[in-house]
């Protein structure tokens, strides 16, 4: 891995610009692998310690993580704000339900196809939208997520979408019922997909495309001058983001076992944004923290106060943002930078 690539990731990852710069890529990588390994172990062991409902929540977290990852690639790395990713999630969910019900495809075959469809949809939306910036883009994408539930209710589409009544999606059944319950099976399936998606994201960000996207975010004119095709890169970013969200939608349909237009209101897009910002909008592993936040904190808020859970949620969100303005990932990077500074001082003295 080249040092340039590493530097680009660090810039992207820290967002606040706190670059440690004291280490070489390979050594850092060793530590990171340890972390990834630890996470993997946790992810593999947890489902055997938890009850069915908690596994269900864990599965939801995995699915949210993929969706938030899609948003982070777009908003964190290429700097385009999207409040419309919930709509792509709907496209993914409905695409996979139609593939399963109308074409009889097995459940495991549908996420890639739904993802591919969403990539095309996202690319086509991103192309004209690439001219819009900042708030204007946010509004345009918000329109997308407002329109989506109504499109799903259209009479002409009803044979496929089930209209307002929604459609049942058959839940996957465990192939090893004695060893793994259906809930665990579904979790491991979603986990496997999520791991693939994370590896892909990791590679996108560290490669040529990732550098181009970060350049676009930090200095669009400069990036253009350097020969980066802004419109095409922005559209690709939209496509990739839509693909991630679409795959998450397709997994989400399997998890819930039912989809309807009410499942994909604009609130979903806003949830994704909250998760992205809490975890650290330009971070890959921060998405996990974001996903844990949007899945568990509303529940926690409900436990603290039954009469005003959303007020509690708001307070928790504000506290989070004040304590870690760059999200969980930003906090980790600051801590790391602080440790590194201390170690340099020590070695000097």
């Amino acid at each position, binding site marked *: 891995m080249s040092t340039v690539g590493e530097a680009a990731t660090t810039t992207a990852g820290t967002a606040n610009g706190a670059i440690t710069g004291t280490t070489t890529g390979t050594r850092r990588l060793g530590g990171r692998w340890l972390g990834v390994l630890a996470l993997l172990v946790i992810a593999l062991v947890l489902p055997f310690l938890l*009850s069915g409902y908690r596994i269900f929540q864990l599965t939801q977290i995995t699915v949210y993580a993929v969706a938030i990852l899609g948003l982070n690639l777009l908003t964190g790395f290429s700097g385009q704000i999207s409040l419309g990713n919930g709509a792509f999630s709907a496209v993914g969910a409905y695409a996979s339900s139609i593939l399963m019900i109308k074409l009889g495809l097995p459940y495991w075959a549908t996420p890639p196809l739904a993802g591919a469809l969403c990539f095309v949809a996202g690319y086509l939306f991103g192309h004209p939208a690439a001219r819009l910036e900042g708030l204007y883009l946010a509004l345009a994408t918000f329109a997308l997520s407002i329109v989506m539930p109504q499109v799903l209710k259209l009479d002409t589409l009803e044979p496929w979408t089930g209209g307002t009544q929604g459609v049942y999606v058959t839940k996957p059944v465990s192939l090893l019922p004695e060893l793994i319950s259906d809930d665990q099976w579904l979790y491991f399936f979603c986990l496997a997909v999520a791991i693939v998606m994370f590896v892909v994201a990791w590679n996108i960000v560290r490669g040529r495309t990732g550098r181009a996207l970060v350049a676009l975010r930090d200095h669009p004119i400069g990036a253009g001058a350097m020969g980066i095709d802004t419109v095409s890169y922005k559209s690709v970013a939209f496509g990739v983001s839509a693909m991630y969200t679409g795959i998450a939608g397709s997994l989400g349909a399997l998890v819930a076992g039912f989809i309807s237009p009410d499942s994909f209101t604009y609130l979903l897009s806003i949830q994704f944004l909250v998760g992205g910002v809490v975890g650290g909008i330009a971070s890959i592993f921060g998405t996990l923290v974001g996903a844990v936040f949007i899945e568990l904190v509303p529940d926690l808020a409900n436990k603290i106060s039954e009469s005003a859970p959303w007020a509690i949620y708001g307070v928790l969100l504000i506290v989070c943002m004040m304590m870690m303005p760059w999200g969980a990932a930003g906090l980790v990077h600051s801590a790391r930078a602080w440790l590194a500074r201390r170690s340099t001082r020590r070695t000097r003295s």
Partner: protein
Amino acid sequence: MSKRNWVVVASVFTSACFGFAALTGAVLATGCEKKKPDGSSSGMAGAGDKGPAMPGITATEIKIGQTMPYSGPASAYGAIGTTEKAYFQMINDKGGINGRKITLMSLDDSYQPPKTVEQTRKLVENEGVAFVFGSVGTACNTAVQKYLNEKKVPQLFVATGADKWADPEHFPWTIGWQPSYRTEARIYARYLLKEKPAAKVCVLYQNDDLGKDYIAGLKDIFGDQYDKMVLEKASYEATDPTVDSQVMTLQAKGCDTLITAAIPKFGAQVIRKVFDTGWKPLHIMSNVAVSITAGLKPAGLDKSVGIITGGYLKDPNDPNMANDPGIKDYRAFMKQYEASLPGIDPGDTNALYAYGVSMTLVNVLTKCGNDLSRENIMKQAASLSKFVVPVAIQGTELTTSATDFRVFSQLQLSRFNGTNFEPFGDVLSAD
């Protein structure tokens, strides 16, 4: 310590942080769940009876759950959950049901079906509730219907007007409460066949499950005469700005009867437009649209005179009802538990609805006696016998059977006289 080691320490710290995040989740998760997987162990009959397993039941408690849209687009319905909790508070204050107090866990699902699935699984698998009661929303209830039926957990008295809840053959663990839109439409069709067999009918309907159930109900009763009687139908989307053009189209067809299946906002528009164009059809309007505060007042009470609708609950705003025993009790309850009912007006039909449906549940649980197994609860819900809800229209009785899960299937027609709805004729049945 070398620089390198520090870096490793830092990295381990990073991973520890993420691990911590995951673990927090796990701890949050396990913290409150050590007990009852699926309620099976905890819920053995109260005083050590050797009866069947009774999840959610102890000697002193009946634990039940529901999902409610306390937030999100349908949060107005949140009043239902709040009122139900207050109602069970009243029952508990009076000593509960056979010595058991009712605990209602009412969880927010923001009207989002995936959230309903999650919260319902939480209620059933973690909290070990006996059954689910009165969850709101057609899509939300549909999302958990299969799950609850597979688990054999009663899904009692769901709060939606869709027609599909009375399907004991496929979903023996699900039962509705209010008359379905289809039942309502059937009653209007019956009325027309009897009173105005030569009617030239136009239908204006909302293009969703509400409107479509109406059309189905009319077809049920008109049968092969449907095409002859219904000259034209027009639909609108709940998101349309106005329905003026639809009203004009229908008027041009020369109908003398208009059936409007709408929600209050559009009900008001139709009333105004029909009046302004000088069209004077016999106007039958869906029960949900004729709220005096939300539908008729905005249109103009004078323009609303003559509108016919079918109701199943008494009108708490009707001055003639001031001395009705049912409504008096209801108002007394709303007054006494005011503190638990923040911002809920006794005139709110959602509160009246909650009062009536809770009363039905208490009747079912009382009938269960000491056998509060899920099987018996479902059995009792499906064998109501001429139960009278005091806030329902005089003369309506609730009767269900193993093959008929329609709880309310009777309506009283009433006509608007400029100030309130005046009942006329007998209580009509859909069959």
